[in-house]
């Protein structure tokens, strides 16, 4: 089963950008440079990056096998983004009642926002 040439190129390009973005953030989290030091969190982002990368070749070849990896990557990106969003909101609640300082936004939330257009596009392609 094949997808269109144009669609496959767009998906592959977006997946490359996503893979690079996640890889960079993963390295920063593992090393603790500039952002919160979180080894396991960094490793999780590294896994997401690898999944995006794994699907690029087959997406260019217009195979649904390639798209599978991009979908898998999107799901994980959204899971982590939504999870940290909830944690952020809980932190705001604690701040509101004066029990803690204002929470910082985890970069996973921004990455998930960056992935959202890709999620919408792939939904349209599959449909």
């Amino acid at each position: 089963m094949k997808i269109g040439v144009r669609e496959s190129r767009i998906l592959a390009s977006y997946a490359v950008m996503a893979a690079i973005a996640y890889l960079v953030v993963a390295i920063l989290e593992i090393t603790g440079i500039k952002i919160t030091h979180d080894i396991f969190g960094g490793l999780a982002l590294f896994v997401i990056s690898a999944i995006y990368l794994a699907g690029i070749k087959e997406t260019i070849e217009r195979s649904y096998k390639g798209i599978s990896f991009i979908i898998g990557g999107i799901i994980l990106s959204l899971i982590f983004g939504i999870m940290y969003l909830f944690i952020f909101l809980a932190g705001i609640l604690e701040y509101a009642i004066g029990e803690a300082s204002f929470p910082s936004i985890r970069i996973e939330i921004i990455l998930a926002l960056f992935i959202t257009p890709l999620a919408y596009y792939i939904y349209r392609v599959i449909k």
Partner: protein
Amino acid sequence: MKAKVAFIGNPNVGKTELFNRLTGQHQHVGNWPGVTVEKKVGRCVCYGNELEIVDLPGTYSLTAYSIDELIARNFIIEEKPDVVVDIIDSTNLERNLYLTLSLLETDANVVVALNMWDIARNKGMEIDVKKLEELLGVPVVTTVAITGEGVEKLKEAIVKATKGKRRKIEWSYGKDVEEVIRELQEIISKDEKFKDYPSRWLAIKIIEGDEEIIKKIEGSKYKDELLKIASRIKDGETVIAERRYKIIGKIIEEVLKKEEEWSFSDMLDHVFLHPIFGIPIFLALMYAAFQFTFSFSQPFSDMINAFFSWLGEIAKNNISNAMMASFISDAVLAGVGSVLVFVPPIFSLFFALSLLENSGYLARAAVVMDRVMHKIGLHGKSIISMIMGFGCNIPGILAARTIENKRDRIITVMINPLMSCSARLPVYILIAGVIFKNSAIAGAAVFSMYLLGIALAIIMALILRKFLFGGEPPTFIIELPRYMFPKISNAARDMWEKGKWFIIKAGTFIFIVAIIVWFLSSFPWNATHGGVDIENSYAAVLGHAIEPALRPFGWRWQAGVALFFGFLAKEAIVGTFGALAGESASVAVATWFTPLTGFAYMAFVLIYFPCAATLVVMLREIGKKYTLITITYTISLAFIIAGLIELIGYAMGMT
């Protein structure tokens, strides 16, 4: 003419619907002697022939792994029905043909019903039915059990099959295996004892090392010779399974003209069950679940903690009787507070696990981990028991009942206490939250306890398998549910169902322990100056008695008292901390532990003893001997691992 017809097939292939279509309202349900598994018997008059139709339990193979499979197999081999109708899910030929090939080896008079034909059609699959008939040597009929499509043709095929024998087709398992089969068949044919068994099927079963068949050849004078020949094929069960799947692959190549299009589920499975990415994805998702458990719930726990501290202060300032004020503040309010403060993380954990379960992922996690589990001598179903153990070890241990092999079941039960149950979570959260200031590091520390538990369970399973039990676990087969977008309302209901025990059972227990510990730490009242000078209390006497065993780890006597109460239930540890420390367990923990000694203490709590309730269930499930072994190994392992953590930490310059 009268004939006996058996219906057989994998679970969920529409077998019962087809059975009902043929038998109408004339069926009745009867029990097999000695077992609880039901069989359905119905009658049908087809074209002047009276057919007695027996609906056998759903089975994936004819290897006697479970009682269901044994029943189905014995019926085919021993009762020798006139016709066996093998019902196949047309959309999953590969898995279903495994049973078909096994059936054909028994020389049974088989008719294949390709059921769910409409779904296969809608998925764009094109199956060459004539070619399949030719390759299998048996009639093949397409059916749609729900609508009744093809049922008349099936009746015709059954009646026709009762009047003649099928064409015999044998598939080659490869030169080496075929040579062994031939030699075995020669010996089998010499023994009168086996005259009722199909010789080729029996030979294959001996190569597979089928336990029931091996028992059957025990009394044969050719036993040693048979086993010697069969032993030439190493790991016979796997070899036969692999080659049977190769044969199936070739059949599918010829009959499946157009494969089904990739569904969304297939795409997800391609990634989540991937041989390389499957396990990292599983670990990433587990990390997300535990990070959510710890970090999302923390603000709520802090708020509850602050509320009860405030109430405690009010009680102390407004009750004139010092003993009563201490009881209300340090026993009752600290007790209730130490229960409620852990409701957010425990409910969050159950909510996250429920989302994973409802989405259909958790069953996939079992499949992914089976690859590792099988290598280390555990059964794939052990993972389900282990994952359930994250909630509570008791249902985890009970879940092991689904494991057919007794040895595998005992190993799974014995390692389950190493799964970090939710009662241990409050201990980790309390200690990690205090000794590691950064919440991400604290979350990682909590997660590492779960990983440590899994790692130790794997090591112990290896040791138990090698030195105590031996043997190999059987192949893991599981029906994968459909992927679904999890419903928040379902997850919330699951969360409440699973989490309410904490408030009721553990909550009551923690509360009682908190009161006992308050008494032990405040009395003799005068000697402790109203619970202020705990060094003079009964709790200190108990703690100092335990302290020598814990001194090498740098843990204070208070930690020993908590471990003592933890023997009864792990939940009691936090209750003890709360009562010994007064209103602020966090401040006390900060003075009792360094990051290194605190982390080692967390590991000790993870490993050191199954709780009393778990012990009772273990006794019932695996008996005294193995329960005693479990107690011994968990205590020894706790000292070894906690010691190693501290030694490595000191070597790295930590304090």
